[in-house]
C-alpha cells in the first residue's frame, strides 16, 4: 500500500490498485507498468532515448509518464521508479512500414548520443571471441565432424570480413541502443505501434539490431526482411558507413554461440542430437547473412545502374 500511496501522491493518476505486484497497476486511465532502476545514469539514458525517438515518429515508445512536478522518475528507497503505459496486445510484423520508420528513428537517436557523456563512453561494446568458440568445439573438431569444421572455417572467414569492414569505417560513430531490442516489445494501442523498451544497460554497436533482424526473419521471410531494411533506409541511411557497420555486425558469426549451446556430451545419443540441432541452428542463421548481403548488393546495383 505504501507504494500505491506514493504513486497517488506523486502522479496525476487515480484509482490505483495492483494488477501484478510489483510491476503492473490498474488506474482510472488504464494499465500502467512500473519500472525500477538501480543506476541513475542508466535511467537517464533510457529517459532520453524514449523521449528523443518519439519525436515525429508515428510509433510511440513507452516514455516515462511525468509526475505532478514534471519529473520523469521518483526516488523510492534506494532505487528510482518510473511509470509507463502498458498493453499486452502484440503488434506483429505485418506493418513493415511502421516498424521500419520506428527502427530508423531509433537509429537516428542512437547515433546522436552524446559521445562525451561518461555513461555513453563506458557503454559495453560486445566483442566476438572465436577462440573461445574453438575451445568449446575442440572435441568435435578433432573428431572431424563435417558441420563443425565447415562452420568454424566459415566463421573465421566471416570474422575477417567483418574486421576488414570495421577497419574501413573505424572513424564513424556507433549507435548506442537498448540492449533488448525485440519484436515482442512491439504492442498495439489504437492501432499504432507502441514499443515497450527495457531497463537493460545499453549496448554500443549494431548487435541489438542484428538480434532484432534474426527475430524478424524467424517470424517472417527473407523478402519481408528486405522490405524492412528498405523501410529503415528511408528514415536512416544504410547506404553509407552506418550500413557497412550494420553489415559488419551481421556477418560476425554471433550465432556460433547459440549453435554451441545446442551441444550436449552427456551421452552418445544426446551428442548426435545436439549436432543435428547445431547444424539446423547454423543453417537457419546463414539465411540472415545471405538475405542482408543480398539486400546490400541489390542496393549497390541500383546505384550503379
Amino acid at each position, binding site marked *: 500500500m505504501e507504494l500505491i500511496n506514493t504513486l497517488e501522491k506523486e502522479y*496525476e493518476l487515480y484509482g490505483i490498485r495492483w494488477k501484478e505486484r510489483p510491476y503492473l497497476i490498474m488506474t482510472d486511465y488504464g494499465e500502467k507498468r512500473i519500472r525500477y532502476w538501480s543506476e541513475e545514469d542508466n535511467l537517464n539514458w533510457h529517459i532520453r532515448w524514449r523521449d528523443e525517438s518519439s519525436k515525429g515518429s508515428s510509433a510511440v515508445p513507452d516514455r516515462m509518464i*511525468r509526475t505532478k512536478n514534471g519529473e520523469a522518475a521518483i526516488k523510492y528507497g534506494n532505487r528510482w521508479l518510473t511509470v509507463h503505459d502498458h498493453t499486452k496486445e502484440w503488434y506483429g510484423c505485418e506493418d513493415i512500414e511502421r516498424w521500419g520508420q520506428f527502427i530508423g528513428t531509433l537509429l537516428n537517436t542512437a547515433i546522436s548520443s552524446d559521445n562525451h557523456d561518461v555513461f555513453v563512453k563506458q557503454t559495453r561494446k560486445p566483442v566476438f571471441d572465436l577462440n573461445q568458440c574453438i575451445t568449446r568445439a575442440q572435441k568435435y573438431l578433432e573428431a572431424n565432424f563435417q558441420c563443425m569444421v565447415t562452420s568454424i572455417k566459415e566463421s573465421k572467414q566471416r570474422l575477417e570480413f567483418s574486421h576488414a569492414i570495421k577497419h574501413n569505417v573505424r572513424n564513424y560513430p556507433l549507435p548506442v541502443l537498448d540492449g533488448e531490442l525485440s519484436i515482442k516489445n512491439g504492442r498495439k*494501442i*489504437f492501432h499504432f505501434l507502441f514499443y515497450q523498451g527495457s531497463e537493460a544497460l545499453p549496448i554500443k554497436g549494431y548487435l541489438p539490431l542484428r538480434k532484432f533482424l534474426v527475430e524478424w526473419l524467424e517470424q517472417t521471410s527473407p523478402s519481408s526482411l528486405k522490405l524492412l531494411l528498405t523501410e529503415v533506409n528511408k528514415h536512416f541511411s544504410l547506404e553509407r558507413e552506418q550500413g557497412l557497420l550494420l553489415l559488419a555486425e551481421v556477418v560476425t558469426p554471433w550465432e556460433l554461440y547459440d549453435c554451441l549451446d545446442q551441444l550436449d556430451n552427456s551421452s552418445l545419443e544426446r551428442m548426435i542430437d545436439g549436432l543435428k540441432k547445431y547444424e539446423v541452428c547454423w543453417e537457419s542463421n546463414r539465411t540472415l547473412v545471405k538475405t542482408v548481403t543480398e539486400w546490400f548488393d541489390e542496393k549497390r546495383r541500383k546505384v550503379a545502374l
Partner: protein
Amino acid sequence: MTTEKDTLNYGPVLFHYDLFPEKLEQHGKVKKVITKRGTFALKEAEMTEDERSWFTHVIQRLSEIGFHQVVPLYPTKFGDYTVQLGSRTYYLMPWFASDERNERAKDEVLIDHLGKIHALTLKEQDFSNEVVEHSYQYLMNRWENRQYEMERFTEEAEQKTYMSPFELTYLSHFHQIMRMTEEAKRRLKEWYETCQREKRYRSVLCHGKVSRNHLIFNPTGEGHLLNFEKAVLDTPIRDLAVYFRRAAHQKEWTPEEGNSLLDLYEKHVPLLNEERGLLISYLSYPEPVFNAVDLYCMKRNDYSQIEMVHRLESRIRAMKKIRDFCDAIMMAPPPAPMEPTDSMPTKIHINDDGDHI
C-alpha cells in the same frame, strides 16, 4: 458523429493525454473532443521544431509576465505541450462554448488584450541601421513590384476593345488605388527617415494572426486569446494593421469605431508619431485590392464575373473606410509620454518573410 476512422486518426494523439474520445466534432480548424473526463479542443497545425518550441515558450512566457487571458495548453502525460505525429503538430486546450452575448464586446476585448500584451512586452530596441535598412528596402521593393504588376494589368485592360466588368470596375478606381499606394510608400519612407534620425524603434510580442475568431470567452465571460502559432517579436503596428484591415471589411464597421478602439489600445501603449505613420502606411497600401486582381487573373474560371466584381467592390469600399480612418489617425493628438518598461523581447523582425500585412 465519431467514426472509427476518426478514432484511429486522433487516437494516437489523444493517447498522449490518456483520453479516449466518445465523440469528435469538427469546428473550423479545431476538433471538439468529448470524453468521460470532459470536453476539450484539439488543434492541428503544421509547425517546425523551432516553431513548436517558440510557440510553447510564448504561452509560458505570457503567463510568467502576468498575462493570463490566454487559452491554456494542457501538457501531455509526458510533460510536452504539443504532440508531433509525422508532419502534423497537435495541442490540446479546454473547450469554451461560444457565447453569443459577448459577440458585440469582442473587438473591445480583443484590442484591450492586445494592448496589454504589447505593453507587457514592449521594448525599445538598440538601433540597428542594418535591420531598419533591410526591413525598409524589403518592403519598399515588394510594394513597388506589386504596383508595377498592377500597372501592367491596367495597361493590358486598357488595350482591350471590350473590357470585362471586373476590369471596368478596377479601372474606374485605378487612380484612387494608385494614390493610396503612393501614400503608403511616402509614409513608409517617412518612418524610415524618422528611425534614422531618432535612432529608435520599439518591438512587442505580436500575436501574429489577430482575428475575432482567436478570442473566446470562458464560462465566466472572461475573454481569452488563442492561436499564438504565428506569434513574433515585431513592431506593435504589425498586429494593429492586421486587425484594422480585417475589421474594415466588416459591413457595419465604421472609422469612428476604429478610432475608439485605437484610443482603447493607446491606453496601454501610446503610439509614437513614427508608429502612427507606419500604421497609416501599412493600412493605406491596397494589398487586398491587388489580391482580388491576382485572384481574377489566376482563377477567373473558378468564379463568375459577378462574384469577382463583388469581391473587388467590397475591397474598394473597405479601402475607402480605411482612408477615412487614416485621416482620423493623422488628426489624433500626440501620444502621452511613455513610462519606461523592462520587458523581454530581444530582437525585431520588421516585415519579415511571411508578413501578411
